[in-house]
């Protein structure tokens, strides 16, 4: 039996002028706990101004290859909904926000994105309905994000353990040499 909790994708915005980018994944039993987990796992160090969590299975993706191979798709008409559009522009880059479209299905949203953002050519499109996103409330931004701003922490490199151990070993070796020459 799979006892693992569902996966949520975590998106984060580092500054007011920065795009929202995909940052990783958390497991959680529901969106509220996914939000708390995302805060603890991802935004305690780097700065953030916004945090989103989205159930992983609410995200529809299409690579360039998948789009090229797909036969002419007949898009069913239905009620329009708002979709967020993200794109991965290189193998190394994080998936980042491209914009928002209105569409009647996830696949239609990808096609709408291609039409709307013709100048963008991501390797991989991600779309998800705006209704599937849980965003942090702006009123809770301070408790969620301030730790990264003023909490001092020591980087591992600030502890000169390696240098100290080397000095100790040298000292010991020199001591032995002196003993031997006596």
């Amino acid at each position, binding site marked *: 039996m799979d006892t693992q*909790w569902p996966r949520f994708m975590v998106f984060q915005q580092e500054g007011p002028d920065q795009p929202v980018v995909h940052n990783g994944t*958390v*497991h*959680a*039993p*529901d969106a*509220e*706990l996914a939000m*708390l*987990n995302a*805060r*603890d*796992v991802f935004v*305690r160090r780097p700065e953030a101004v916004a945090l989103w969590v989205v159930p992983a299975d609410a995200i529809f993706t299409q690579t360039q290859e998948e789009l090229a191979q797909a036969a002419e798709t007949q898009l069913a008409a239905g009620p329009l909904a708002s979709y967020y559009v993200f794109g991965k522009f290189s193998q190394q880059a994080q998936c980042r926000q491209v914009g928002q479209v209105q569409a009647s299905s996830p696949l239609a949203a990808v096609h709408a994105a291609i039409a709307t953002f013709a100048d963008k050519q991501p390797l991989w499109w991600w779309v998800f309905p705006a209704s599937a996103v849980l965003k942090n409330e702006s009123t*809770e931004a*301070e*408790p*969620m994000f*301030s*730790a990264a701003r*003023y*909490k001092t922490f020591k980087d591992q490199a600030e502890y000169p353990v390696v240098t100290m151990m080397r000095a100790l070993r040298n000292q010991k070796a020199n001591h032995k040499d002196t003993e031997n020459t006596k």
Partner: protein
Amino acid sequence: MERAHQYALSGYLIALADDELVLGHRDSEWTGHAPILEEDIAFANLALDEIGHAKLWYELAADLLGEDKTTYPDRLVYFRDAAQFRNLQLVELPKGDWAYSTLRQYLFDAFEALRLEALSQSSYTPLADVAARIRTEELYHLRHSQAWVLRLGLGTQESGGRMQAALDALWPYAQALAAPLPGERDLHAAGIVPSSADLFERWSGEVTQFLAKSGLQANLQSPVSDFDRRTHSPHLPALIEDLQSVARLDPEATW
């Protein structure tokens, strides 16, 4: 501030700091043992935050006593004997199961939120400033512990049962939150700190309501543990020994 108040406030702050330090240590015992990875990280963060708050309070006490605030916190933490600690028994009890630690964190966080709100209005500005800064983090702690109390309380028969058992065990100890801290009466009269009894009344109302919403019943007739912060369970000396063992191996070592 009057000299007598300075001295009284330093004792008050050291008691607050001891609560944070000891609870932070208990939280840190979950590192590597929490039921899931995300909560392992969350509890490590909580532990770091609580210990960080302890440091802020110890430093403020150092200022009041004219001590060197770069060395005074370490002296208090690593070179006092267990009998000199002024924390509540509530925070020194062993971490128990996940339900127990989560519920204790909730009971403590809910009280802290009220106390910090009041302290951030203190007539002594350095105290008000530190309280406001700590409060920001405590609001997040409270959100985290509330989320878990609600879900475990209403979750399965087992999770609800464990939470109720934890509440039955912790509730008598939590009553000691009503007791005045060292020096509190004079400091309260001077508008420097709130009355713990007043805060407790608000806390009690809020907490019993939230617990009921979470399917948990606080036994209002339960016996009350010892109020005195000078009285400790045998669990504290063991915790302090663990906490101090490395520092006491070589008191002159620099870190």
